[in-house]
């Protein structure tokens, strides 16, 4: 199967430039510089590459939104990987930092950007150190700095660490954090492509997205577009975790059945238990029941099934799981990570957590469930940023598909009361 990102991923020493180059690393630069910047943007558009961070927005199209004739411009690489279930970017960062650098160089050339920042979450100190070393190596070889390979284009690339905030994975909050502020999201419009870092046009892309770019240049956009489905091209790194025998990051071609990912690649359910539920794209995507295990892993299929591909984190839950307990854990997460800027999210996540707590304790009622649904409705698409929507996803989908789990706990209350 075609491996774009994970080819040689486990090769020893891949994160040092000599080994990387021996595997064909940085070869795409020559090809890229032989083209005009706008041509590269067209190539990426034609490849059908969509943002791999969670939003799935077409990458080439996003680049073409950069405000014309406004300089300087910036690139921010989103390495803030914090979506529960997701661990794919860390593998790329630690094992193959040069692939990201190569992707960034091409992207910056295409978008006429001369300064790039890799924003890593604060806990990625080790990955950041490895990246710093790789960047130094790249400078030494002339792949970064002034007049790269005689192309006339310049690029300075830096790492920048966050300090523990999931919300900084949201692109505008990331920019605020990078500017030295609290990581609260910004008003949009204006969008980062027009007014981003320091008020200048900025490209923000996920690690995985940028890592695909060299392959597209080397192999050609048609080859990328030939992989996958109609609306989801190429491959996707899927972090499979939870109740599987072989958790790990797997590179799958878009359109692979989820059943295959769980049972073939990840070895099936632990202890050969029954699959009960799975979350297809990280905790912010609605959970789906086992009956939907034959959905194909691509943007449109998962959307049709009532969820989203998201960041590509497949969390598998077997029959021992109490969905209410899982939902409670995730709701706590969103409550903890809410930036607090907007009222519905700040108050709503906490209220929902309180209600779920009661349900989990066995002291909840049907009214609690009704309230949860109504609160979710009052939060959906009413918050300042998508974190509010993410917070309600496990709750709404959990109640929709696993009402019996809730009812069990409510029944407990009534029987206990009757008995007591």
């Amino acid at each position: 199967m075609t491996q774009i990102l994970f080819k040689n991923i486990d090769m020893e020493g891949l994160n040092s430039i000599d080994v990387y180059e021996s595997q064909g690393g940085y070869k795409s630069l020559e090809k890229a510089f032989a083209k005009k910047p706008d041509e590269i943007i067209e190539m990426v558009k034609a490849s059908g590459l969509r943002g791999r961070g969670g939003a799935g927005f077409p990458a080439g199209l996003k680049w073409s939104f950069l405000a014309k004739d406004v300089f300087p411009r910036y690139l921010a690489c989103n390495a803030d990987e914090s979506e529960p279930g997701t661990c794919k970017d860390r593998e790329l960062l630690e094992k193959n930092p040069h692939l990201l650098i190569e992707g960034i160089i091409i992207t910056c050339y295409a978008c006429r950007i001369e300064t790039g920042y890799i924003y890593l979450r604060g806990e990625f100190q080790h990955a950041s150190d490895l990246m710093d070393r790789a960047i130094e190596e790249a400078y030494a070889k002339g792949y970064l700095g002034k007049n790269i390979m005689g192309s006339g284009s310049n690029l300075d690339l830096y790492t920048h660490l966050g300090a523990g905030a999931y919300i900084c994975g949201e692109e505008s909050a990331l920019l605020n954090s990078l500017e030295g502020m609290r990581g609260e999201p910004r008003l949009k419009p204006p969008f980062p492509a027009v007014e981003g870092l320091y008020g200048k046009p900025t490209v923000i892309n996920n690690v995985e997205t940028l890592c695909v770019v060299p392959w597209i240049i080397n192999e050609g956009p048609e080859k990328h577009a030939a992989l996958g489905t109609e609306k989801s091209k190429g491959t996707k790194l899927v972090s499979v975790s939870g109740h599987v025998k072989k958790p790990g990051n797997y590179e799958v071609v878009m359109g692979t059945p989820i059943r295959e990912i769980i049972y073939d690649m990840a070895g099936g359910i632990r202890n050969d238990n029954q699959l009960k539920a799975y979350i297809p794209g990280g905790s912010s995507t609605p959970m789906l029941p086992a009956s939907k295990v034959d959905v194909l892993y691509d943007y449109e299929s998962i959307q049709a099934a009532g969820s989203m591909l998201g960041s590509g984190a497949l969390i598998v839950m077997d029959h021992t799981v109490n969905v209410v307990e899982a939902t409670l854990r995730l709701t706590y997460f969103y409550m903890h990570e809410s930036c607090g800027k907007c009222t519905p999210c700040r108050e709503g996540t906490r209220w929902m957590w309180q209600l779920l707590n009661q349900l989990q304790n066995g002291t909840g009622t049907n009214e609690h469930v009704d309230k949860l649904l109504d609160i979710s409705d009052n939060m959906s698409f009413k918050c300042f940023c998508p974190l509010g929507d993410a917070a309600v996803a496990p709750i709404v989908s959990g109640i929709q598909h696993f009402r019996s789990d809730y009812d069990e706990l409510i029944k407990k209350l009534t029987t206990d009361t009757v008995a007591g």
Partner: protein
Amino acid sequence: MFIFTQEDEKKIDKIVKKYPFKQSALLPLLTLVQRRDGYVSPEAMRAIGGKLELSPGYVQSVMSFYTMYHSEPTGKYIILFCHNISCQLNGADDLFAHTGEKLGVKGGGTTEDKKFTLHKEECLAACCGAPMMRINDTFYENLTKEKIDKILDSLP
């Protein structure tokens, strides 16, 4: 009295040069102090503010937003124990309780001898190695009770 050492000054110079606006150096400077002292004191905040021409209130506002900055001294080793979904599905709650008991800080906190600070933490992007914990800069994955004991006992 909080002071930046000569070493610190050198590092700070390098950091500030990375950005066109020095306010961007705020998180890096807070991180520098946090890693050096184990926490960020009000005097440190003032000093950082002075370096970057930011009011101390602003520095504190930013610092208090992020979970990796502590306003009170922490242990030599900060243990972040993931309790999010993938780890929880793989028994993290029991392992956390075990760790807490072993260290004598049930539910989290700093040990008497100031060697360890234990906290529950949100997803650390190591879900494929669940359950896991992060101690200072190192990730320890696929934990069991025995593994945890071994790791903690081995730390100097």
